[in-house]
């Protein structure tokens, strides 16, 4: 039997993190949370989570950053918004999940070869280059960088989709592709300027 210290000291808390969560977009009402657990109950993914959404809300507002950003829950959220429309205190839980995901990526809090950040990156590159997503190409790129063996398992489905015309390999792109880079660079510049 392996025993671990579970007591938490004040030094374990990160007050900056607590401040950040209640000041970030969507965090305005996190302090109103009454810990009723309706978010967890309505979440279709909570049955797989290490910390339920309710616990994440509380851990975040108290500043337990390690626990929150290291949690599997933030990666499980599918943004189905069930928690948000149910929340009796109108807390924007879905958006906070986004915010936590972003923070975890910036601070490198995710497992190696974890597909979500990889997918996001590939998605970003494709949008920047073409302005639109070609699903077939995105999927190939993601699997190559995470679990390429899965691609083989998927090939049967891929063939079916290809045959029914639902997997066109032709690259979708917009005409004024240059605008994409300008648009995205401007966002980056403003973000830096405002320290967002």
């Amino acid at each position: 039997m392996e025993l671990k210290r579970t007591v938490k000291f004040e030094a374990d808390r990160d007050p900056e993190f607590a401040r950040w969560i209640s000041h970030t977009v969507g965090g305005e009402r996190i302090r109103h949370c009454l810990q009723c657990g309706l978010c967890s109950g309505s979440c279709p993914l909570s049955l797989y989570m290490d910390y339920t959404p309710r616990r994440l809300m509380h851990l975040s507002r108290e500043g337990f950053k390690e626990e929150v950003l290291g949690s599997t829950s933030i990666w499980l959220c599918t943004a189905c918004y069930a928690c948000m429309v149910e929340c009796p205190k109108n807390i924007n839980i879905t958006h906070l999940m986004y915010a936590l995901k972003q923070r975890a990526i910036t601070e490198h809090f995710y497992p190696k070869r974890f597909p979500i950040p990889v997918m996001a990156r590939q998605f970003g590159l494709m949008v920047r280059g073409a302005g639109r997503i070609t699903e077939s190409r995105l999927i190939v790129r993601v699997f190559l960088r995470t679990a390429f063996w899965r691609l083989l398992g998927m090939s049967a489905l891929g063939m079916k989709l290809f045959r029914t015309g639902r997997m066109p390999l032709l690259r979708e792109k917009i005409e004024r592709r240059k605008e994409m880079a300008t648009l995205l660079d401007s966002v980056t510049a403003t973000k830096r300027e405002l320290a967002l």
Partner: protein
Amino acid sequence: MKFAYYPGCSLRGTGRAYEESLLAVFRALDIELEELDDWNCCGATTYMSVDELTSYALAGRNLALAERKRQDIVAPCAACYLVLNKTQHYMEDYPEIKLTVTRALAAIGLTYDNHVRVRHPLDILLNDVGLKAIAAKVKRPLKGLKVAPYYGCQIVRPYSTFDDQRNPTSMDRLLEACGAKMVHYSLKTRCCGGSQKGTLPEIGLDLIHYLLSEAHKYGAEAIATVCPLCQFNLESFQKESGDRHHPISIPVVYFSQLLALALGAPANKIGLQRSLVPIGSVLAEKEIAYA
């Protein structure tokens, strides 16, 4: 009625049947669509989760393009509908987001002043066209075809104003007007797992199985969807999810395919040939001529 049509990337890929059938429906009902000139990816949920500001800017470009034409947007894809709406809300609520997007748009010579309404086809069919008008144009009634309506997440939640967020009924009413019989089951707004199927496959398969088996349990002969990703998930992984639980095979179509069928469009013009689980035998059983 004339709208700016925003297909989004999926309707040009796995969701082609959605586009084909939807255009057929709008044609049959004399609603004019003009594809939004040079539209770009909306930013979608994956992007949203890692770089939200960027996705607001991407959505902002589409909104600005529509505003320049003074048209409201029709966005059939659930993710696009959500992101475009969310961008509008957040630009109003958060000055820093508004500033970022306004600047980015200015850099490519565009402006956006919040004049565009982002509409879903369900909304337009129900509120602009109306059930009566649609029922009057039904040429091929669906003859009690038992359909489980599946709304999924992002159409009704959290921004829809055209339907109840917890208990939506717009698709039920539309398909009933075409003669279908709606199957009532409790999971019609429960998440299908979305892109989780791609990233955490086992979990995605469980969620897919729950939906299929509940619809099946209450006697559904087909599932109607409003979202390309839902349709893809529910249709493509029936075998895999069946392997984990018990096998279920049920056609999963877009609501617009059923609607187009009822309005008299030929099956091969509304993407029914692209189904992985064909609906043909079910239609034949009901003696619904679909050729």
